[in-house]
């Protein structure tokens, strides 16, 4: 088990590094010039542009920039800014070209907002999706089943941003049923209340696909021979469904769930944007618009770590759910 985890961690590290290198090179391969973006349009001239380029370090050769970045990541590095030397400890993600603030600070203050939103949404879609999916599977072919499957298909086929915008507009802004997002500094209560609207809509829409996954998985499980064996023991149908059927039906859902949570953690972009949640998805989008390389690299790093970590979590969780899976 330990060697398995160590090997997986080594693999994870190389995946993260490869992702970072690709993101770095992609940035330089693209037609991007952050200095140009920062240069005031009316008063921009060659000297000014050169000065900006030098101040953000883009005048150095690519290899040096590359080396500096990764050195900062592992060992920290010093930045000279307006005559002062600022030390940025490992893992140093650099300073934003635009805001001049530390990327670590920029992202790590925002990441918790994304985590809270993603986890609240996950609670909603797991509870709603799995419960309704099981109900549909157990009453397969009934009006309830058809209604649930139909509703989940309708919900799944409307573009998500339309639904999110409607929720943001009606219950939140016009009717004031649900409070608007406020940062944690305004208090814990209002913060979580403000997360309710975005988490609910994100959760409900995602639950549509969980209804279908769960239903299909449960129906497949209930057709298994071991369910017939369980029935032939003379135990109650309830025990057959939930003790024998449910756990087996949930094992494929665990994989999808892990990857879905990873996807949400890397930035619930549309939701954050529509509800004004100050998360990393929204910050990453702003950085992308401004060619703010250090911030872009920071979001890529967090994304890669989250995806790799969740994959590991899923694999380990799997070995607890299914005794046939041995970690070695």
């Amino acid at each position, binding site marked *: 088990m330990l060697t398995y985890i160590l090997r997986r961690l080594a693999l994870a590290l190389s995946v993260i590094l490869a992702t970072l290198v690709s993101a770095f090179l992609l940035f330089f391969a693209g037609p991007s010039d952050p200095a140009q973006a920062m240069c005031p349009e009316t008063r921009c001239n060659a000297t000014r542009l050169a000065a900006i380029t030098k101040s953000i370090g883009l005048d150095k050769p690519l290899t040096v920039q590359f080396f500096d970045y990764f050195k900062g990541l592992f060992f920290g590095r010093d930045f000279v800014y307006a005559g002062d030397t600022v030390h940025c400890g490992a893992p140093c993600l650099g300073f934003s070209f635009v805001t001049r603030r530390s990327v670590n600070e920029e992202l790590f203050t925002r990441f918790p907002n994304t985590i809270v939103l993603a986890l609240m949404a996950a609670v909603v879609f797991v509870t709603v999706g799995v419960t309704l999916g099981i109900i549909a599977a157990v009453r397969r072919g009934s009006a309830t089943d058809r209604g649930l499957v139909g509703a989940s298909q309708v919900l799944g086929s409307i573009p998500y941003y339309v639904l999110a915008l409607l929720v943001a507009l009606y219950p939140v802004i016009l009717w004031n049923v649900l409070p608007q997002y406020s940062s944690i500094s305004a208090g814990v209560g209002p913060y979580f209340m403000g997360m309710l609207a975005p988490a609910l809509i994100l959760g409900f829409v995602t639950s549509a696909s969980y209804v279908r996954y769960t239903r299909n998985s449960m129906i497949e499980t209930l057709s298994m021979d071991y369910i017939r064996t369980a029935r032939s023991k*003379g135990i109650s149908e309830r025990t057959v469904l939930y003790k024998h059927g449910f756990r087996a039906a949930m094992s494929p859902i665990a994989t999808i769930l892990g990857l879905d949570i990873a996807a949400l953690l890397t930035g619930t972009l549309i939701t954050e944007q529509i509800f004004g949640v100050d998360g990393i998805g929204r910050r990453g989008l702003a950085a992308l618009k401004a060619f703010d390389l250090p911030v872009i690299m920071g979001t890529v790093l967090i994304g890669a770590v989250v995806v790799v970590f969740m994959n590991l979590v899923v694999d380990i969780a799997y070995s607890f759910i299914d005794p046939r899976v041995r970690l070695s």
Partner: protein
Amino acid sequence: MTASVNTISTQSAEARNAGDVVLDVSDLSVAFPTEEGVVKAVSNLTYQARLGRTLAIVGESGSGKSVSSMAVLGLHNPKRTQITGSIKLDGIELVGAPASTFQKIRSTKAAMVFQDPQSSLHPFHKVGKQIAEAYQAHNKVSKQVAMKRAVEMLDLVGIPNPQRRANSYPHEFSGGMRQRAMIALGLVNNPKLLIADEPTTALDVTVQAQILDLVNDLQKEFGSAVILITHDLAVVAETADDILVMYAGRGVEKGSAKEVLAQPSHPYTYGLLQSLPSHSEDLEELRAIKGTPPSLLNLPSGCSFHPRCEFKSQVEGDACWTQLPAWRPTPGLHNREIRCHLADPVATLKHDEEAR
């Protein structure tokens, strides 16, 4: 091991008299309505299973062997199955019985051992727990007592080191051991009837014999009735007392297993035996029954076997395709019944065998 057998056997308070009818199936029909039409899996089937005896139900795939047995335990989806006729298990009528009745009789009065032990045991639950669960469902005992019983059962079916193996998962067992565990599960509540649905099909040949011996031995000790569903006539020869040959959802011949195998009196049974390698001369090709089993959606008129029967020309008139033959004693044979229009099937088949 003998000691544990005794303690288990004496837990049954009722006296068991060998020969008593424990399962009385009469005029049983099982049909599945589908979009293409009604699949008549079993039609007007009648048979009995007796304590202390093994009844083999033999037939090709789709002849209704498993379907009729699953009906005994109520394992068909009631919404998608039409069952008529009568199934009396230990005096309890099961056709039309509520789910609660089936829950009570499952495992206590009738239990089933399924074909593929690999897929029939729950992959996520420990073997001992799966057996203990069945015991606990019908006996008000603690988990520890139920588990102790499960270990005893594993010992009884010949699993070495049962205490430890009870804590293993099915995938840690070999195929033969899994089937032993299934038998332990089947017998944990000492049922009067054990239905073994092709219990050896998924096992390799050396293990097959061990499993059949085990079933035979346990039957003697428990005094229960066994229904052995199989398409393997060699298995029947070794283990069964009585035989019921099925074709297209109907019984076509019944009698003592040894006698039927030695001297079949229905053209279908005869054809089955002719298709076995041991019944053919060296260098001679095996004789398969011509044609394929009929679609259960659209059974042939009259005798279902007539499109494949080589002897229908020897029946006068058009009885074979207009009239369903009724059960009747085979002329010239004792304790044998067939459904066939042939006037003297024994002579007809004997003549055919001599002619080759």
